């Protein structure tokens, strides 16, 4: 896939923003475990949250590929900022874009697309993430309302000052014919009575991003807050996860590339035994392998994105891209940290951040094992 001129210009704009505005400040936010509101506001003004949102709802009317291009550039510099955008769009916005009613879109999308508000999607529960169908949270109809009870774990963007809502999956009954549990998606506005957001987790990485456990106790929202069809919540979410995986893959390739950039620079500068460490073949080979993984992973997300944009099936390609790129990010982060020696273990260095951040790429939005299950399934196994 060749980036179009517009995508290339967007890439350069985001690169500029990431290098000039994110890179100098994000290390401090990370160490303080603080959410970078000002950066998110600027990203909102740049229209990044609105990239795949139709213009009539305040979006850029662009395509999902544009979002992936932006994510790769942000991921190169910092994953917390990148995941805030990735989750903000693929989990906070896309369920509404794809399945929301016109009223829901008009009410929620303009602020979300402008980055003035953030939304979350709560699927994972303490009892299980990979097996998302095992949801225990329930929503019962009562007097024109949904009454929600249960909890959600690890929900991104769910507790910021600007979070407007979280869409949660809940069991809303049983299918009469099959007897299977019926799972639906329901939008819960922030601040609704009975909806509590626990304090931030203490995380290994992504420390400038926002993640919380959520509890619902007789939490009432109007019936019209159902997103999409009743009983289709799980299936809908799975379809959204496919495109989300391409986005996460692009972000991961950015992280892998960031590790290469930093390592090349440092290998030229750092002297040991009278020569730049980049003159030693073992360092050169390490960096050559890092570059190879990055390029292969980029080709994989481009391949998935190309099929996605053409409206072709891309589930397998998205899983391949996610698997390959999250491995590339983790492997590159480990190698880059090694190349940086002791400095690589210091939080203020970008490679140290990548080292801590990259692990979750192999877990979130479908673990590596889940990706392999999906790939194998597409092969008829």
């Amino acid at each position: 896939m060749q980036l179009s001129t517009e995508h290339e210009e967007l890439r350069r704009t985001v690169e500029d923003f990431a290098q000039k505005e994110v890179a100098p400040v994000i290390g401090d936010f990370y160490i303080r475990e603080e959410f970078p509101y000002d950066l998110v506001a600027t990203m909102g003004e740049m229209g990044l949250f609105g990239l795949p949102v139709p213009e009539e709802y305040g979006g850029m009317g662009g395509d999902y590929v544009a979002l992936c291009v932006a994510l790769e550039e942000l991921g190169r510099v910092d994953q917390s900022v990148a995941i805030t955008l990735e989750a903000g769009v693929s989990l906070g916005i896309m369920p509404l874009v794809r399945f929301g009613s016109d009223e829901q879109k008009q009410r929620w999308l303009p602020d979300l697309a402008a980055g003035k508000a953030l939304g979350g999607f709560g699927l994972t529960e303490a009892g299980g993430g990979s097996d998302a169908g095992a949801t225990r949270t329930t929503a019962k109809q009562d007097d024109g309302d949904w009454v929600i009870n249960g909890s959600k774990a690890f929900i991104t963007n769910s507790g910021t000052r600007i979070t407007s809502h979280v869409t949660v999956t809940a069991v809303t009954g049983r299918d009469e014919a099959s007897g299977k549990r019926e799972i639906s998606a329901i939008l819960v506005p922030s601040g609704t009575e009975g909806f509590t957001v626990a304090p931030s987790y203490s995380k290994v990485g992504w420390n400038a991003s926002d993640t919380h456990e959520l509890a619902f106790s007789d939490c009432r929202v109007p019936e019209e807050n159902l997103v999409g069809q009743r009983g289709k919540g799980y299936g809908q979410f799975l379809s959204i996860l496919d495109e989300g995986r391409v986005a996460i893959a692009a972000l991961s390739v950015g992280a892998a590339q960031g590790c290469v950039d930093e390592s090349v620079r440092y290998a030229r500068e750092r002297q040991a035994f009278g020569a730049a460490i980049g003159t030693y073949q073992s360092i050169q080979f390490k960096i050559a392998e890092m570059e190879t993984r990055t390029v292969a992973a980029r080709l994989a997300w481009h391949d998935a994105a190309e099929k996605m944009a053409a409206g072709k099936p891309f589930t397998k390609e998205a899983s391949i891209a996610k698997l390959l790129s999250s491995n590339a990010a983790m492997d590159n982060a480990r190698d880059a940290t090694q190349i940086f020696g002791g400095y690589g273990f210091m939080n203020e260095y970008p490679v140290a951040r990548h080292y801590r951040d990259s692990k979750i790429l192999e877990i979130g939005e479908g673990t590596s094992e889940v990706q392999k299950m999906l790939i194998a399934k597409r092969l008829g196994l």
Partner: protein
Amino acid sequence: MNIVVLIKQVPDTWSERKLSDGDKTLDRASSDAVLDEINERAVEEALKIKEAGDAEVTILTAGPDRATDAIRKALSMGADKAVHVNDEAIHGSDAIATAKVLAKAIGTVGDVDLVLAGNEATDGRSGAMAGMLGELLGWPSLTHANELTVENGTAKAKRETDEGTSDLEASLPAVVSVGEKINEPRYPSFKGIMAAKKKPVTTLGIADLGLDASEVGLAGSLVQVDSFAPRPPKSGGQKVEDEGDGGAKIAEYLVGQKLI
């Protein structure tokens, strides 16, 4: 309001900049070219005026083919249209020759109320364009503006210098050059990037401006570069031994350099 913003594509200040050995002009091919940051501020200022009232913003540049990238960036920030003076004959123009070209090109835009420029380009750094254009057009020029308000046919600017702040005022039409502190330029949005594709860009040669090749370029320039030498490498600097009075010694040095 009809606003023209002068923009220049310059070698990225992050890359190594060189003069070419042949005709001793700037070697523009050897480094990445970007829209000069000071010009982003000039564009931003024009867009603010446009957003506060009603204005059409035209981008004007004299530069080679690849200056179209700088034009597109300015258009994607939100300017309405552009004029690109692109002619081999301009190569090697000094500041006065460039000003002649730009003055003529401004004439093609119609009844212009305001011309905005950067106070100094990061490559040529003559810091002369706004003054020269004012002279050629017969308009007042307010240079080094760190604040600008345009209303009721007047432009008011604040200029900061080491001595203090000057308040400047002129009636339109006028030329204003902006300083580093005037604003923070916006990033183009994707919508802006998409829209820029469809905005009109008029390309003109010097003949279209009624100029002759002898009036511009190396031939038409009063200043010509005779020879040049690279800046000598930095010397070792001065080492301050701290014998308990290190702070005072550093302060003394800085005072000597008029830095504090």
